[in-house]
């Protein structure tokens, strides 16, 4: 408990900028999202007609939208599952007092500063079927030069690889820090007990790392769900044949290319359901994480 300054009006004055911005640019549009989601836009948004929950029923019965949701969830799952387990595994292998630890963290974490659009642009050329590095290596190893952009699974794979690369070092740095916090005595006890590598990983390391895992889960899910919109726009534009058409990209197209704001608002609310779940996970963990930083 901190000592207080007197003043009834003063705290409101300090809070005023935050309250006005949250109210006008976050809560008001959020409330309007509910309203807009019940209208249909006609003539490219020139007229609005009340349709109740029709936008939602239209979305949730549309094979295209459900396919987009399936692709998004599959993509998020793969990015998070592969990205996190790979970085955790490598972190466990690397876990010891390392020389030049500070420089090493910087050497690992820097791709975090690159936007998904920048990462996407660089990998767009790496995956170039004719002169990219990826197909050159595949040609050397397997005499195979696939066309990444015209095959649905390959196009999605491309986005998954780029996303994992973008976050890999960041995840690894957090896992290494988390492992350093686990007392050596736990690990030694497990080794003396003769626990195998995998047993030790699943029964000792992962439970003790759970705060870090939760934190990275939230960050990575959020990244794969929302931030990748720039990557998709640069690399595949949702194609081929909508195979990489993520929910957020569909929302952008419906809202701002087809000008169907009602349908887009309904999609926003569907995304909101996912965000609520994610935020509950976040509240479970931020308290702990922020405690680390204080």
């Amino acid at each position, binding site marked *: *408990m*901190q*000592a207080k*300054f007197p*003043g*009834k009006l*003063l*705290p*409101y004055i*300090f809070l005023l*900028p*935050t309250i006005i*911005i*949250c109210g006008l640019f*976050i809560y*008001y*549009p*959020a409330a*309007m*999202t509910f309203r807009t989601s019940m209208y249909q836009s006609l003539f490219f948004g020139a007229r609005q007609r009340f349709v109740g929950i029709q936008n939602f029923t239209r979305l949730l019965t549309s094979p295209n939208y459900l396919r987009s949701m399936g692709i998004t969830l599959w993509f998020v799952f793969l990015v998070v599952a592969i990205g996190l387990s790979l970085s955790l595994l490598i972190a466990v*292998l*690397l876990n*010891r007092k390392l020389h030049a630890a500070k420089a090493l*963290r910087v*050497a*690992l974490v820097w*791709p*975090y*500063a*690159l*936007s998904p*659009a*920048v990462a996407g*642009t*660089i990998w767009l*050329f*790496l995956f170039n079927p004719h*002169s*990219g*590095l990826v197909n*050159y290596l595949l040609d050397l190893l397997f005499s195979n030069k696939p066309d990444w952009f015209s095959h649905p699974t390959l196009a999605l794979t491309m986005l998954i690889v780029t996303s994992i690369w973008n976050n890999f070092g960041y995840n690894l740095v957090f896992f290494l*820090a988390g492992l350093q916090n686990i007392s050596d005595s736990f690990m030694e006890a497990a*080794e003396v007990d003769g626990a195998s590598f995998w047993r030790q990983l699943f029964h000792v390391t992962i439970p003790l790392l759970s705060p870090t895992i939760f934190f990275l889960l939230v960050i990575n899910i*959020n990244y794969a769900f929302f931030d990748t919109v720039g990557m998709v*726009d*640069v690399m595949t534009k949702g194609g081929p044949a909508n195979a990489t058409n993520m929910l*957020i990209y569909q*929302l*952008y197209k419906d*809202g701002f290319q087809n000008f169907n704001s009602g349908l*887009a608002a309904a999609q*926003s609310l569907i995304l*909101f359901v996912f*965000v609520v779940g994610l*935020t509950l996970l*976040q509240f479970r963990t*931020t308290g702990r994480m*922020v405690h*680390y*930083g204080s």
Partner: protein
Amino acid sequence: MAVDVTGRVNPTRARRKKALGTALVYTVLFLLLVIIAAPVVFAVIKSTQTSQQVLQYPPMLTFGKSALANFKAALIDYGLGKNMLNSGLIAVIGSSGKIVTALLGALAFVYFEFPGKMLWFYFVLLTLMLPMPVIIVPLYNVMAKLRWVNTYYALTVPYLASATGVFLFQQHFMSIPQSIVDAARMDGVGPVGFLVKILVPMSTNVIGAMVVIQFIYLWNEYLWPLIVISEPAKQVVQVGLKILSGGGAQGVQNWGVVMAGALIVAVPPLVILLVLHEYFMAGVGLSEEK
């Protein structure tokens, strides 16, 4: 630590195993750093080649002589230089604004008693549940009503509140010893003086971390600028890069220029991260001295 059958630690075996492990660890680490850096190194090499060299197969992996021409084309011919200035302005104003409003908010929450305090705290915190995509359609309409479409107000003002910032500063202020506040009040320092002279100097780690996180976040924003800015001269770098990688107005893709563009866009957030990495690591809880 290696343990023999009798359950005692065998020192020679343990040492040998450790030395071998260390060599392996540094090898893995070295390979990892190479794999992580490879795409960007490739982009750097390609950004120096002519439009013919860049498309050679097998790929030409040595530096060419067109670096100057490619970077100049990206910056001037494709207007990425102008986009850089726009993004820089937005990121600097936006992140400083966020830090100021968050400091003031945390000051109110930690050092004052007022009715409805918890309510207002949740009012701020729950905005975390409403990220841009959830509110983007009506937010655009708000911008239209304010006549802020195609202005930098649209790219800065809606970002100026930061729930994360308020929360980070609030946690940090609560860890500051109460005696410091008492001493300040004894000296007759008011709340604003207290914030400027005592809290801010004691919060450099958190402020540094906020600068890194918010600058990178704002510089990397993609969807909102794409929607709310349609004049090319006012556009931000991320969207400028998309236009460049799509061949720009000319519609011809020169991969050397595209790679130069991607690198240009990557440099400012990388510099911020490298210069302020100690604050960033400390602020997100990765410092050694815990």
